[in-house]
């Protein structure tokens, strides 16, 4: 019985783009790894199996392996997605994996999204600006409408995986474009009554073609977002606000 099951399992090929910046003399290449598919196998399991049994030098990033931390964004047959929650059963017999474009390459499938996100956060000030006032922690918290809190959370579900940037036409061409992720963050803080920044302040941050007017409305961001955030709506909404201010 066991043998029967084993013999009916599919063998899949993963073609992985390889490059190790610490060995610049070795040219970038595709390596193909074959492995037997297991029940419920994800790309997280498959890549770890390859590293443990075939090539221990293979670089990739996983942290939560549950689709919530955003570490494992990569191009899966050309499309940005989270590898940890991609079941191999949904993939063809040969699958090509490549690192996300735009971000600095660390090695193989690992890219430095952290550096990019940090720069974006510093530039846009992705925190509550309240004039430096410290809350008195002994007192009751400021009330907030329940709906306002839920609306903010809708936009805060972003996990900074970088898929929207990898899927963005403008980001490929314009190095300092803040992307859907940056614009979504601005929308999130603009919605937050605790943030004292005015629309004019936000205009200063995103009111040009490195911000909201750089978007070409190709909607790759929204298609690629693993959290299904309403990115296109946010960009359209911000544009309307910002256009009103620019005159």
């Amino acid at each position: 019985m066991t043998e029967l099951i084993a013999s009916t399992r599919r063998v899949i090929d993963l073609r992985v783009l390889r490059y190790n910046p610490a060995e610049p003399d070795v040219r970038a290449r595709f390596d193909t790894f074959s492995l037997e598919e297991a029940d419920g196998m994800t790309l997280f399991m498959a890549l770890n199996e390859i590293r443990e049994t075939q090539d221990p030098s293979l670089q990739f990033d996983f942290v939560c392996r549950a689709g919530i931390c955003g570490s494992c964004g990569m191009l899966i047959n050309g499309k940005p997605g989270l590898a940890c929650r991609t079941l191999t059963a949904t993939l063809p017999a040969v699958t090509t994996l490549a690192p996300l474009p735009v971000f600095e390459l660390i090695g193989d499938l690992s890219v430095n999204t952290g550096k990019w996100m940090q720069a974006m956060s510093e530039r846009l000030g992705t925190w509550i600006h309240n004039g430096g006032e410290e809350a008195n922690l002994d007192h009751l918290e400021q009330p907030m409408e329940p709906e306002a809190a839920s609306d903010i959370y809708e936009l805060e579900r972003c996990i900074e995986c970088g898929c929207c940037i990898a899927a963005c036409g403008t980001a490929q061409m314009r190095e300092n474009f803040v992307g859907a992720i940056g614009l979504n963050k601005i929308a999130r803080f603009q919605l937050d009554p605790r943030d004292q920044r005015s629309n004019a302040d936000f205009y200063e941050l995103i009111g040009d073609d490195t911000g909201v007017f750089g978007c070409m409305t190709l909607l790759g961001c929204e298609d690629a977002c693993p959290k299904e955030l309403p990115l296109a709506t946010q960009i359209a909404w911000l544009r309307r606000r910002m256009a009103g201010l620019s005159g």
Partner: protein
Amino acid sequence: MEIIRTDVLVIGGGLAGLRAAIGVKRRGFEPIILSLVPPKRSHSAAAQGGMQASLANSHKGHGDNEDVHFIDTVKGSDWGADQHVVRMFSHVAPKAIRELAAWGVPWNRVQRGERRAIINGSEETFAEADEAHGLIDARDFGGTEKWRTCYVADGTGHSMLYAMSDQAIARQIPVHERMEAISLIHADGRCHGAVVRNLMDGSLRAYLANATCIATGGFGRIYRVSTNAVINEGIGAAIALESGAASLGNMEAVQFHPTAIFPAGILVTEGCRGDGGLLRDRNEHRFMPDYEPQKRELASRDVVSRRMEQHIAAGHGASNRFGEHLYLDIRQLGETHINGKLREVKEICHYFLGIDPASELIPVRPAQHYSMGGIRTDHRGESPTLRGLFAAGEAACWDLHGFNRLGGNSVAETVVAGMLVGEYMADFCERTDDAGAATLARETLRHEASRLQAICSNTGGENPFALLREMQEIMTDQVGIFRNGDNLEHAVATLRSLLARSRDLGLRRQVRGANPELVAAYRVAKMLKLALCVSAGALARTESRGAHYREDHPQRNDRDWLSRTLAVWESSEADMPTLRYEPLDVMAMELPPGWRGYGPKDHIEHRDSPRRQQQVDGAASIDDRYQRQAGLMPFAHLLPERFQGRNERLGDPNGD
């Protein structure tokens, strides 16, 4: 060789480390944070269900305060916790949540008027007060008397971590990402920083600091089946252990979460049961009321996990192609509730199980989840035996959780510990100005460099990935929910032989740069040492307490075991930890040992318990709760002054 100097080195960029660094910076000192990953990817983000703080805003939280939170936490710990620390924690938790609210966390808020909820399997209706409208809401969680768990849908940790990380960015606190501390720099009982490996290019450097704080989270990945992120390998705790000076406390106290999806081991939040979800067996029978009539699905995690395994062992488990399991049923909560407040659960079910939890049962089985044990510290978060070394959060054992942690107390602990330990480290920096000698740093750096070189040039036959796998199998199979002397002896013996084999590694590839095979190779001995602390501690502790359950010693034994285990690794040649015990003083307890309110009522009493209980009963006539508490076990003087104030609540403006 590069040496970087700073006032405070924080190892770990999750909630505890970030908050500690913010506290230090506020006080005018310069912190540097090291993180294995970009901080927003830390495992803190995985805390779904919520954070306990006794705000008492919602109807089901009425009457809640620090006293009730304290009692729940001590009972949850099965009296293993340090009660002074529990008091400090329950007092500061409301402040922590209010600070996070000011920093932008979109806590779910109370909606005035009629509210419907599923409680114990049936719908109840109650009213939320007008004056509570817009204040922070709470949901029910296991082992608590009140609805106390504040939440942001089921992405609580995510929102907290993002707000905290963004605060660190706002305050220009440097985070050195993809950096791993592999050894502490220390001499004569004083810690001076760490030697650190860059995970992107493989280079080594030393960080010299006046105070060093380990906030690296738990070590769940020594188990095969764990809800933990893959970075939770416990290297922070391991380098403290390898110092030979610091000790690890209560390493045998390991929590198993009742509802990990089967077989992937991915967590679905306790909020599912808090919001009314039920556990069912192969016949869809709701079995928890049969075992725990008082708290049912919402007994503490150790109890629920044991009952589930017991039920499976009795032949009531369902089975699929991966093996036996039970079901979590949240269908009755309805689609709107699930889409709003349990959407991460819904996503996880969709992607990993291919099911819709609004209409289908979720296959679950308990999995390793949390490390109550960790680097032993005093109430200030400092190691009593290695000065200048601090620890905070899951990596630490200042001992908030004893032998079982309550759901919702972990994210609360990370932030509260960060707030407190940040202050204490700043105090430390004010008192001492000694960033350590560069000579010592260079020596440690050279030593680590040659150790890594030795691994690379070794030609032994052992494969680090295979050793890790064997360790994980043993831990899950023999040092799990049900333990006994025979299995534990076997586990200890096998782990010792794995440790010996780990000296005979051979790398298959010689590559420059990050080199993931080398990473596995230098981590394996560290993880095996932790696994040995857990197993040896579990073997020695011949009683059952909280999550540590011995089939051959099923009673809690306060007479002989009301003590904290301390594990020390005395020399680099040792192949076993040395265990010592630190007794808990019943006569100093505000809540003397008794029955938890769930689980069996059969513990062996400590000789001081009745006497102390009498004293506590005698204080019951004092009306003022603050005065009564202060008479029994004063703690306010242990807190930094800025966190001593009383907490205001609705209808209780002065916190009286």
